[in-house]
């Protein structure tokens, strides 16, 4: 899916409606990327706003001979990395983890096994918390690898890192996560 050059040219002329046409088809993917990285709705929306503003300002420099989505994704990745994550952000992010999930009472009423549901939910929560606690650039590497299914080479070009650094970063990030899960007994094989 890529947007027509005509719409991009209209955006370069700063036509208001053209931005709606351009961004509406990508905002879902952008939000997923931001949420996967921040694990928090409010922070994701902040980053989304930043992405929209950056697109508005930078659209003039977009090379029309290249595909639009990778360019847009790079803006989103940079916005995520630049997002100021202070203690407040992290604190609310950790607190909000369970807020949108259905109550256990609904699970009991459903056909799913309660025990399985609790295990899956706990595992998911532990993985989420562990990813949140990862330092940079581990978090972004994990996000790009598992949300966008990017290859090592693609991650390297997105983050402007050497290929070897991406390999070692991903390896270290997974080792941190593996050890945390192991300590919590989630790695029984």
């Amino acid at each position, binding site marked *: 899916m890529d947007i027509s050059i005509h719409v991009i040219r209209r955006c370069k002329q700063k036509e208001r409606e053209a931005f709606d046409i351009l961004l509406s088809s990508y*905002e879902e993917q952008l939000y*997923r990327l931001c949420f996967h990285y921040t694990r928090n709705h409010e922070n994701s929306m902040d980053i989304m706003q930043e992405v929209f503003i950056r697109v508005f300002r930078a659209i003039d420099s977009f090379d029309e001979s290249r595909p639009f989505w990778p360019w847009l994704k790079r803006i989103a990745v940079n916005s995520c990395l630049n997002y100021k994550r202070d203690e407040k952000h992290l604190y609310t992010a950790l607190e909000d983890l369970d807020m949108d999930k259905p109550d256990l009472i609904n699970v009991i009423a459903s056909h799913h096994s309660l025990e399985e549901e609790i295990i899956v939910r706990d595992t998911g929560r532990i993985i989420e918390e562990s990813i949140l606690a990862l330092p940079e650039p581990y978090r972004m590497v994990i996000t790009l690898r598992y949300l966008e299914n990017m290859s*090592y080479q693609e991650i390297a070009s997105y983050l402007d890192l050497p290929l070897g650094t991406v*390999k070692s970063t991903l*390896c270290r990030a*997974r080792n941190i996560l593996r050890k945390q899960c192991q300590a919590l007994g*989630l790695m029984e094989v």
Partner: protein
Amino acid sequence: MCNFNKTLLHEYIDGELAPLEVQILEEHLKSCSECRKELNQLKILDWDLHHQDAIEVPYEQLAQLRKSTFDDCCREYWESQETSNLAEVYKIQTSSMLMAVNYMHYLPGARLIKNAGSSTRNYVGKRLNWRQLIGPKR
């Protein structure tokens, strides 16, 4: 303690190993329980990371955010364009006036005009009787 390069295990589950490296690794795994265990753990983690909870996308909020952000951006942009247009007009007019003033220095007869001006001043300075200039009263 196995000294095998553990990074290869990660590249293996990511499908980033060359065929020859895959062969070497698989041969090693046959005889090394430590690497087999680590590989299994990595596979579980890999599965967990691939199967995280689905992200709920707030479509309406996103559309609202997009609308308000681009409304603001476009308004600010066009307002700044108008201001800069006025500034541009002012700049052009100022520069054309300055050029006209400068051109006066190169006008043929500029010195004559200047001298004429000063002569007039001198003439007026003498408090002449205007009657002398406009002629006798009828």
